[in-house]
């Protein structure tokens, strides 16, 4: 369970997040939508405790992570898997080594066990046969899938996805959506997905929350969001702009 209370965060004196409140139940998938630069990725970083908020509290399984020090947080982060927007693969390692990293570093798994699980994870994201390549030798979409395999290989109870389908073709994007659903249904993973992709949002979400001007403006099931009377929400989900461009 994830609970965020009155979260404020920003840069150089300007708050991007101005009092975010949200709650994600166990095995639930919350999709956060909102305009670029609105602080969605920052919100994920704060939930993963990769940054400290200026104000507010973040409860992961009823424990407030905000006051905890880095050394205390380090082992706790095993609960969370993160798919970064640009995958953030270690460029000195191969795809295989990247995916194996969470298992290898813990020192608890045999080489045989690691090999089996890495091959399974690579198959899950359609990357079989690419394990020997370096991140620089594969496409952006493949890097993202490798990042996803790395995020989920140690079976975290919470997964945070930052733009999981951005830059992927519709078929691969749909396979990623199916994977998010599968993780939620079969392994009861609690998920927060940040995306602009409304097709993906409607498919994977149990609830959708719209982040607007630093707060969750509206939250509800995909059907509720689609039928929202709020003009800001409607404009976003329909992709309408008021700005006219003369050509």
């Amino acid at each position, binding site marked *: 369970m994830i609970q965020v209370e009155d979260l404020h965060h920003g840069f150089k004196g300007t708050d991007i997040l101005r009092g975010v409140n949200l709650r994600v139940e166990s095995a639930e998938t919350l999709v956060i939508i909102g305009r670029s630069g609105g602080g969605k990725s920052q919100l994920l*970083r704060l939930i*993963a405790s*990769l940054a400290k908020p200026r104000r507010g509290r973040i409860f992961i399984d009823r424990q407030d992570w905000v006051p905890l020090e*880095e*050394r205390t947080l*380090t*082992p*706790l*982060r*095993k609960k*969370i*898997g*993160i798919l*970064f927007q*640009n995958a*953030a*693969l*270690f*460029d000195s390692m191969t795809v295989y080594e990247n995916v194996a*990293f*969470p298992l290898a*570093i813990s*020192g608890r798994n045999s080489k045989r066990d690691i090999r089996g699980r890495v091959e399974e994870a690579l198959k899950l994201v359609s990357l079989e046969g690419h394990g020997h390549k370096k991140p620089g030798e594969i496409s952006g979409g493949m890097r993202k899938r490798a990042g996803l395999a*790395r995020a989920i290989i140690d079976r975290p109870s919470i997964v945070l996805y930052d733009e999981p389908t951005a830059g992927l073709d519709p078929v691969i994007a749909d396979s990623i959506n199916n994977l998010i659903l599968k993780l939620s249904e079969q392994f009861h993973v609690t998920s927060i997905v940040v995306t602009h992709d409304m097709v993906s949002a409607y498919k994977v979400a149990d609830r959708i929350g719209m982040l607007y001007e630093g707060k969750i403006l509206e939250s509800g099931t995909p059907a509720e969001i689609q039928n929202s009377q709020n003009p800001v929400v409607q404009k976003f989900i329909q992709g309408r702009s008021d700005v006219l461009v003369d050509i």
Partner: protein
Amino acid sequence: MNMLLDPIANTAFRFLSELGEWWSLTLETLRSLFTRRPYFREIFTQIYLIGARSQMVVCFTGAFIGMVFCAQIFYQFHKVQMDSGTGPAVSIALARELAPIITGLILAGRVGAAIAAELGTMRVTEQVDALRALAVHPVDYLVVPRTIGLVVSMPMLTAEAILVGIVAAYLVGTQLLGIDGGYFLNNMEKYTKYKDVVAGLMKALAFAWIIVTVSCNKGLTCEEGAEGVGKATMEAVVVSSVAILIANFFITIIFSKLLTP
């Protein structure tokens, strides 16, 4: 008044804040060194990358420093017919000052720059955050192996530079400048003490610590983008080099009090 004081206050604030960051990384590294399980594979990789891969440049530089220093000393000593004093002068200077300083400056450029650039790139591409997200402390995985790598390699490289420098000086002195080989070696052995070599190797240890902590700190705190990585790399080399020269002066003074009977 403000126009004059503001830049000074800003510079002082920046200096103190960087000093604080460096100090807290130093403490965290020490804490990790003695309390955390080491990543042996990373440590051996760093010893190879830092130590083994730096040998050629250190030996090459040590040889030429030994040769040129031998020639300069010989030309001065020859004026007062003290040719046989060339050997000990070269070996003591190499052991106490030249080898540790030259090795330190070379490694600040070669290894310090590489560390700052690598960690800086990892930071701006979120690889350091990915490490943290995978429940690995960056100091344990990135800083400690590099620290051990440099602290183990630097004294060995310095010893190598001393040895190669002396051999090169001997060859130049005996084959080119006509110094008697027996006198050269006898006097060198007579006047070069164990403590001279110890002083040089202790300096090498201190310089290794300076290079690795400064470079890791610059890399891990670098600003966004390619410009940030470039700036961090440049600053790592400059700050390490200047710090080595300053530390050398104080270590020399302290050792002269401690090691002189």
